[in-house]
């Protein structure tokens, strides 16, 4: 994009919106925009509410209520209501792709209930409204609970037939309605929200299956009535179609034991015993997650894209049905690399 003096956007004449919320469906859309307003040195978050036919319309209407030009170039989070997501996310996000100054690294977050409550809650935080959510999501990404989905990366998935979107799902449970918490990840099928949410303890295995780089998956369980905590450091995967209806997924995990109070961990047999236990435990968890995904016809792993590359003739419009009936065999092999500080 070429900039000349005719394109000048003076920062002092623009209002920088960091958090956007959208709810409703076409015809009766409602958008919320949170921006900091300066009052005698302190900045206070102001929320502009606007109605309209579609998102763009609400944005234009909102602009009428602000004394400066509203600018979404620093938007870091978009909150989306469940109703909007159920109607299909693509058409509502359209406007955000078309404006060249728009921030496309903003996180997409599904929220339970009224979007307005979440917007209002932002007034009580010291951090910038949008940045609060962005940090929230980023820190959960680190531990693999939510996959990395921004406006940009979501677009690639939304426009693809062989992969489905999952978005972080937040709930507002506390009495004061001030602290949103992560409810898990919402599952999409064919671009529409299914209404089903994977709980955080399950969604981290989605990260494992997706083999997201640089993420660490933490897990705690009981082994012979002793607490066993470990971190999955690295994941290597191998997918293979055994037959048109059977999919084989081999995963090799590198595991670090965090906490395990048992003597004799230096014994090689003991370690392989533990490895077998971890294999079984994780296979169970993963199978559970895959079952839910198949139930909801949500191909969050992108198996469709994989199939399309390997066996293009087998891929058709009916992929989501095929996916739901696919027999997926998961084989987990873990290797304990580190055994922690204290044995």
């Amino acid at each position, binding site marked *: 994009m070429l900039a*000349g003096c005719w394109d*000048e*956007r003076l920062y*002092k004449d623009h209002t920088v919106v960091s958090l956007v919320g959208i709810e409703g469906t076409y015809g009766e859309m409602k958008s919320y925009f949170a921006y900091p307003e300066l009052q005698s*040195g302190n900045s206070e978050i102001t929320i502009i509410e606007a109605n309209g036919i579609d998102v763009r319309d609400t944005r234009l209407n909102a602009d009428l209520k602000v004394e400066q030009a509203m*600018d979404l170039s620093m938007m870091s989070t978009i909150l989306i209501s469940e109703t909007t997501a159920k109607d299909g996310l693509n058409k509502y996000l359209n406007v955000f792709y078309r404006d060249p100054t728009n921030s496309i690294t903003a996180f997409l977050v599904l929220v339970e209930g009224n979007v307005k409550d979440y917007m209002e809650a932002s007034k009580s935080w010291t951090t910038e409204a949008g*940045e609060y959510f962005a940090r929230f999501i980023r820190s959960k990404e680190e531990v693999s609970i939510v996959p990395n989905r921004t406006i940009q990366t979501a677009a690639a998935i939304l426009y693809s037939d062989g992969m489905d979107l999952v978005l972080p799902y937040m709930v507002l449970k506390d009495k004061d309605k001030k602290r949103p918490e992560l409810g898990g990840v919402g599952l999409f099928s064919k671009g529409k929200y299914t209404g089903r949410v994977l709980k955080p303890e399950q969604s981290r295995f989605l990260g494992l299956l997706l083999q997201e780089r640089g993420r660490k998956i933490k897990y705690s369980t009981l082994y012979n009535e002793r607490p066993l905590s470990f971190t999955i450091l690295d994941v290597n995967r191998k997918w293979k179609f055994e037959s048109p209806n059977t999919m084989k997924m081999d995963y090799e995990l590198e595991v670090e034991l965090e906490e395990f109070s048992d003597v004799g961990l230096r014994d090689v047999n003991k370690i392989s015993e533990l490895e077998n236990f971890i294999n079984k435990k994780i296979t169970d968890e993963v199978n559970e997650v895959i079952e839910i995904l198949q139930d909801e016809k949500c191909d969050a792993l992108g198996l469709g894209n994989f199939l399309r590359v390997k066996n293009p003739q087998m891929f058709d419009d009916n992929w989501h049905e095929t996916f739901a009936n696919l027999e997926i065999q998961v084989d987990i092999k873990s290797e304990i690399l580190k055994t922690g500080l204290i044995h």
Partner: protein
Amino acid sequence: MTEEQNPEQVILTKLKDSFYNSADFVAKPISWWDNEVAILCFYSSIVNKADVERIMYFFKEHLRDDNMYWGESIYTSVIPLDEKQLAKFLCDGETIIVRLKTREMIRINLPEMAYRQTDEPASEHVLQGSREGLVENFDVNISLIRKRVKSHRLVVKQKTIGYETNTTVYYLYMEQLVDEEALQLVEERLDKIKVDLFYSTGQLTDYMEDSVWSPFPQLLKTERPDRIIASLHEGKIAILSDLSTTAIIGPTSFFSFYQTPDDFNGRAVTGSFYRILRIFSFIIAIFLPAFYIAIVSFHFEILPLELSNQIKSDIENIPYRPILEAVILEMTIELIREASIRLPTSVGQTIGIVGGLVIGDAIVSAGLVSNMMIIIVAFTAISSYVVPSTEMNSSIRFLRFPFMILAAFFGFIGIAFGAIILLIHLLNLTSLKRPYLTPIIPFNPKAIFKIFIRMPFFKPSKHPKSFSPNEDGKS
């Protein structure tokens, strides 16, 4: 008028007339050997009278002209009388005794011109190492250099410039190491100088430079003898004059302006760190204000969200565009700088405090300029003064203005185009017909490494040569 005038009286009058009866010109008859009459003449203001007197006494008492080379010694020589040359010698501070009988001149070369003691150069401070600087005297300067290079390959050549001032310009080089083509060029250009008055090194640089209108200095100016000899050993040529403490060194590359003797006096690791810091400061000094202006007027989305609030609250109530804001502040700094150079040191500090603290604080509370802009401009100013060379320093302080204007009109695109033009200019620039941006163009990976890293002294076994036209690609 008496009919019978002594021949010496005639000559005396003629001599005084030809020197326009200047008050400090002395010409008088003296008696020489065997009642012979000679005429002594000198400029009393530029002659070491006591020493001349001693030599004259020695001549009269102990010498006779029946030996060969009787008049030749360190200070003296005897040549046939030549009136034109007589004037020149006198102006150089020599004392001349004209023997009327033999029509000979005895030259006693003992001038005493005013000059300073050697002193640390004010514009090139170093932390450690030699603190000697050049002075306004040829002999002292050359001795400062000769004592560092005790080699007969150090050649000093001279040339007289200025029909009225008759200034002697000296150029120095190391035989066998020197870049021959550049040497030829220096000689050609010195020959071309045809002026009446020659009084400053600035004049000399204008004649010697390849592109006078470039913002970048193409010849290194220094007052440090250690820097001169380091350059001579790289095959460069140094030009000195009696008038100024500044030596001009060429051919020079852009990066030599960013080196200081401190790099070599200190340790290799720290020397390298500061060298990298200085090159970083070049980028900051030219681009930072432009970058900030581009951000707040075009691309504010690249600010981190946490910072954006601060900046926003800062600039919201400034009535002007960022470019105007920046120009106000830059001008203030330039004014303070200019004022403190002209004023005596004690007053200069006061100006610094008044300018820095009072104006800086008041200008923000008055709402003319934002705090952020103060930070940017102050940071830039400090960066620009890191450059060891005063010449380069003024160049980069000047260069930031076009970039600020480009940024205000076209944002990052403007800066990018400006940077491209700047780079093309630098690539095209030559110093005594040698590429200015060497070793980037012509590309020499090993030498590029040396720009950033000060190599240990024992490492380079080969002679360092900045410009080796005959050995391209071999080294």
